[in-house]
C-alpha cells in the first residue's frame, strides 16, 4: 500500500546521506500512481503532488532522522487538509422546519440515505418528516414509505401525478402544521448534464429554501466525481456531501476531489444497506483508507 511504499522509498534514501530533489521526484511519482489507482481525480493529484513536493524538499524532511516517516506524515497531513480536518455537522440553523434536500446521480443511495438520516436525527431528539419527491422511478414513493415505517418517521407523499416542486411545497405546509422540525426531501436520481432535471432541483430549492443541499455520491465513483460535483454545485450551491457504500472495498479517492473542487465538506458516511449503517464522516478514516 501507499504508506508502506513511501516508508520503503524514503528509508532507502537515508543511507545516501543527502537527499536530493531527484530522490523526492521518484517518491512523488509513486504517490501520484497510488492516488490515481485510488480514483483521486487526476487534476487534484497534480496539485496535491506539487504541494507535497514543496514540503518534501524542505528541511522538515531533509534534516529528519527518519525521512520516510516524515513523508508519510506529510502525505497524511495534506490529505486531511484536502478533506477538511475536522468533521462538520449538519446545519439545522434558523427557523423550523429545516429543509434538507438530497440530490445526486441515479443509484447513488439517496432514498436509502434519506431513511438513515431521518433515523439519525430522530435519535437526536428531532422530529423529522420524509418527503417522497421522486415521481419517476418505479416504486420510489413506496420505497421511501417502507423505509419511513421501518425507522418510525412519517412520509409525506402525493403519488406520482403531482410535480416534485408541488410535492415539496405542500410538504412544507404539512411539516409546519404537524410541527416537524426537519424536512428531508428525497429527489429522483439525475445526470448533472440534464438541463430540465437540474432546473427542477433549482425550483425545489427556490420553493423550500433548504439549509442543506447534500450531494449523495457513491464512494466508488471514478474520475467523473469532479464533473458531477461541479455540475450540481454550479446549479444549486451544494452545502455538503454524503459518501455512500463505504462498506465496499473501493478506495474512495473521489472524496479527495469533492472538497478540493467545491470547498464543501463531506458530512456523512453510508456504511451498509441497513438504516443504522450511517455516521458522521471522519476525514482521518478516509485518509487512512486511501493511504492503505
Amino acid at each position, binding site marked *: 500500500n501507499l504508506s508502506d511504499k513511501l516508508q520503503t522509498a524514503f528509508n532507502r534514501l537515508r543511507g545516501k546521506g543527502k537527499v536530493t530533489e531527484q530522490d523526492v521526484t521518484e517518491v512523488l511519482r509513486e504517490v501520484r500512481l497510488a492516488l490515481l489507482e485510488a480514483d483521486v481525480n487526476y487534476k487534484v493529484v497534480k496539485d496535491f503532488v506539487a504541494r507535497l513536493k514543496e514540503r518534501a524538499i524542505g528541511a522538515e524532511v531533509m534534516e529528519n532522522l527518519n525521512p520516510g516517516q516524515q513523508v508519510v506524515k506529510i502525505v497524511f497531513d495534506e490529505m486531511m487538509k484536502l478533506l477538511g480536518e475536522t468533521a462538520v455537522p449538519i446545519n439545522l440553523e434558523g427557523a423550523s422546519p429545516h429543509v434538507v434536500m438530497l440530490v445526486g446521480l441515479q443509484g447513488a443511495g439517496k432514498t436509502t440515505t434519506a431513511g438513515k438520516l431521518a433515523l439519525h436525527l430522530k435519535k437526536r431528539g428531532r422530529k423529522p418528516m420524509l418527503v417522497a419527491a421522486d415521481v419517476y*422511478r418505479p416504486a420510489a414513493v413506496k420505497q421511501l414509505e417502507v423505509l419511513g415505517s421501518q425507522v418510525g418517521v412519517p412520509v409525506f407523499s402525493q403519488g406520482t401525478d403531482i410535480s416534485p416542486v408541488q410535492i415539496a411545497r405542500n410538504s412544507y405546509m404539512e411539516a409546519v402544521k404537524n410541527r416537524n422540525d426537519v424536512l428531508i426531501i428525497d429527489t429522483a436520481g439525475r445526470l448533472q448534464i440534464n438541463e430540465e432535471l437540474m432546473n427542477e432541483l433549482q425550483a425545489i430549492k427556490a420553493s423550500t429554501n433548504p439549509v442543506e443541499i447534500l450531494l449523495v455520491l457513491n464512494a466508488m465513483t*471514478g474520475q467523473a466525481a469532479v464533473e458531477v460535483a461541479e455540475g450540481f454545485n454550479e446549479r444549486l450551491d451544494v452545502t455538503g456531501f454524503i459518501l455512500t457504500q463505504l462498506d465496499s472495498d473501493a478506495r474512495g479517492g473521489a472524496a479527495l476531489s469533492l472538497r478540493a473542487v467545491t470547498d464543501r465538506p463531506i458530512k456523512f458516511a453510508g456504511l451498509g444497506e441497513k438504516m443504522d449503517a450511517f455516521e458522521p464522516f471522519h476525514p482521518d478514516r478516509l485518509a487512512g483508507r486511501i493511504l492503505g
Partner: protein
Amino acid sequence: LTGRGTIDEETYEELEDMLIQADVGVNTTMKLMTRLRETVSERRLELGEDVSDVLKEIMIEMLSTGDHALRSSPTPPTVVMMVGVNGTGKTTTLGKLAHRYQSEGKRVVVAAGDTFRAAAIEQLEIWAQRTGSHIIKHQAGSDPAAVIYDSLQAAKARGADVLLADTAGRQHTKSNLMDELNKIGRIVERERGRPADEVLLVLDSTTGQNLVQQAKEFSRIIPVTGVVLTKIDSTAKGGAALTLVEELKIPIKLLGTGEKMDQLRPFDALWFVDQLFE
C-alpha cells in the same frame, strides 16, 4: 484533442491524460501507451491524428473478446440472471431486456429474486406490467433461492421462452451475501442440469477502478458470462472496463444508455471507444 500536426511527446501526453480521465487506470494506460509507441514506430507514422487512430484500434482489439451476443438455450426457457453491487441498474436492465424479448414475440417470466430491499418487488412488478411479463414473487424477506427455484418451475410449466431473474444488490466484501449468490447459482444448475445461460454482471460506468475488483470477485462466486455497462449516458466513460476485459476475458454484452425501456444497446467496441475519445 486535435491530434493534428507532427508527433511529439505532447501527442502522447494528451492521449495518456485522456485515458486516465476516462478511468482506464494507470496500469492499463501504461500498457496501451507502450503498445501505441511500438506500433507508431513500426508503421513509421508521422501525423498526430494517425496516433489517435492507432490507439483506437488497439483499444477496440482489447475489447473484442468472447461472444458479445446474448446466448439462448437450445431447450426453453433461456435463463438470464442479473447480478452486481448495489444500485448499478440490475432491475432496470432486466426490465429493458424483458421489453426487448417481448418485442421479439417471446414469452417472458421474471423472477423477483431481490427479497430484501425496500419495494424491490414492487419495482419489478411495474416492469413486468410494462412489458407483459409474468412475475414470480414471494413475500418480502423470503428466501431468494426459493423464488428462483419457483420461477424455474413456473417458466417450464408456462412454456416461457425466457426467464429473467433479478437478484439483490450486494457488496463482494460481504461473504454471507456472496454465499447466498453462490447458492442461487447452484440451485439453477441443479434444477436444469446446467448453469444459467447468461449470468450478467451489471456494472455502473461511473465507477472507478473498483469495477475490476467487482468483476474478479463476482466471477469467482458465480459463472459470469457477460457484463452490462450501465449509465454510459453519464459524463463517465467506463474506461475501467478495458482492464476488466483484458484481465478476465469476460465479454461486455450490453450498454445501458438511459432510464427508459428502449435504452439498451448491444455492445459495440467502436461505438464505445469513440465515446471515450469524445
